[in-house]
């Protein structure tokens, strides 16, 4: 694959007091590709994703989006570029239904005076939202019940589908399968493949090596605040990934 990266981070440094979370980390993701980001606890994955999602700002380093240098002041800046993130807490409003969650903060307003008075195009949102969920195979059975009453897998699927419905370019998924059972995990992995097929770049942060190898195209390995290896999923193995994560293979790979 020689496609230009759609989103790229170069030499990102982020310190929290005396703790150096990121020490010149690089990262890149290409359109229509699933890039996995792995690393042991404290390797800097979450910090890097927060920076790429606009939720945190680096001390130094550069971000390039579609080849242009950008700076993100907040998550809204990222979203306006079609970059969506699903954090581990899912950020769903439990009392609202899936459609209301999908459109939360982005409601379609009625045209003219009614819209300015705060009235929404409820039926339009219901229709388009429903199709968007079904389109991704998010297997949402109940569109009108509160999401708080749904299973962990359903809620995960709703959060991922919501992000996918708005992400035009890049979507970050932080540990999307961590709390799920076997069947639910398969559902989320299928969802990831469908998002990829739409030409969106997917970044998957995960601890689960088999899932990473199953669904991703490339694996970025982080250790001690740096990316220490980029491996093609086809040509690597769990042993090699663990080796890169723990440093047992130092010297064999160049980032």
């Amino acid at each position, binding site marked *: 694959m020689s496609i230009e990266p759609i989103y790229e981070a170069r030499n990102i440094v982020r310190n929290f007091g005396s703790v150096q979370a990121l020490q010149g980390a690089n990262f890149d993701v290409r359109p229509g590709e699933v890039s996995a980001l792995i690393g042991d606890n404290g390797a800097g994955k979450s910090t890097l994703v927060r920076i790429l999602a606009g939720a945190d700002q680096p001390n130094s380093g550069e971000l390039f989006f579609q080849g242009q240098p950008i700076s993100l002041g907040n998550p809204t800046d990222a979203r306006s570029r079609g970059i969506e993130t699903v954090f581990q807490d899912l950020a769903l409003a439990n*009392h609202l239904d899936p459609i209301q969650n999908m459109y939360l903060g982005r409601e379609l307003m009625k045209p003219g005076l009614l819209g300015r008075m*705060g009235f929404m195009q409820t039926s339009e949102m219901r229709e*388009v939202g429903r199709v*968007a969920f079904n389109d991704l195979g998010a297997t949402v059975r*109940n569109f009108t*019940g509160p999401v708080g009453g*749904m299973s962990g897998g359903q809620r995960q699927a709703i959060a991922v589908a919501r992000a996918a419905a708005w992400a035009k370019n890049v979507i970050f998924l932080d540990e999307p399968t961590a709390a799920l059972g076997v069947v639910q995990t398969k559902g989320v992995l299928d969802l990831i493949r469908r998002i990829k097929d739409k030409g969106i770049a997917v970044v998957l942060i995960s601890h689960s090596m088999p899932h990473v190898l199953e669904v991703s195209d490339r694996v970025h390995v982080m250790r001690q605040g740096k990316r220490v290896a980029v491996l093609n999923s086809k040509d690597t193995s769990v042993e090699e990934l663990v080796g890169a994560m723990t440093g047992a293979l130092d010297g064999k790979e160049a980032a």
Partner: protein
Amino acid sequence: MSVDTPTKPTAPAETAPRPNMMARVGSALGAQAMQIVLVWLAIIAIFAVLSPDAFFDPNNFRNIAISVSILAVLGVGTTFIIITGGIDLSMGSVLVFSGVVSSMAMGNVGEGQGWLSALVGIIVALTSGLAWGTLNGFLVAKAKVPAMIVTLGTFGAALGLAQVLTGGIDRRDVPDVLVDTVGFGDVFGIPTLVIVASLIVIAGIILLKRSRFGLHTAAVGSNAEACRRVGINVDRQLIKVYALAGGLAGLAGLLNLTFFRSTTIAGHSLTNLDVIAGVVIGGTSLFGGIGTVFGTVIGLLIPATLRNGFVILGVQPYWQQVVVGAFLVAAVYSDQLRRASSSRGGGGRPNLFHRLFNSKRKDS
């Protein structure tokens, strides 16, 4: 932030809208607001059987409606506040304060009579309520002081200031035109107070159910962090909600003034608890995220109907407090059960479970 629609469909929607409508009707029937209507109807039925003539006198219903009107205006704002996960203890004092400053303003314009004076009084009452509400909202949202403490503070402050302004003696400056049209006026035989309260309630229902403001109110109460992530200004939403409730307390102050022809300084120390009890009995969760204005109205009608019925039957009206207390605890208990069952989730069939569970409770 750019506004656009989610990626366009390629596959047709599998679920037809018709069963969805059915599901909606089903969940509406299962909602706590509907169950509370049944409870209210049962209370009416009991009184009707025990004393059909006196209870079904149209004047009796008129009395119940009037007694609930002012509380209902307060209840609309309080419902919004409790849905955000907050609380408002200050409303009774804000009502009194707004009545006092409104009365003082009206006494100083046009010799306290005429429509000009009335208009000034209305504007002053609403502005006063809005100002207290905004102060509450600002302290809750920006200063991050817990709502209970903020509104306990303004509860005392507003009442104290009202007493400072009047020397503790009730004022009675209200233009006759206002008393005749609002306080004791009728339109087609319906008391104006009831009409004003009904309009506020209907507006509240539409605002909560249909508008983005209402949706964001529930969303903030449900998960404020999620709202921040999607770019909703949570602080501003909270300030708006408290300002709305304050403005309604100001309006209630004016209604109170026109009905009693007095600022009733000492008469509203427990109004906040009456209203909060009504909101909670009506199914609004103290934990935020969920609630209805309609439920609040029924939740306020139940104590009023009980008091009325006990008087008719010659039971000591103090029993009403005992019964309402029991209702309040039962309402919160059922909310706890509901929250426990919905967070249990499991198997993706909470709705069925929920409905079975609810109907079981209805039968008992």
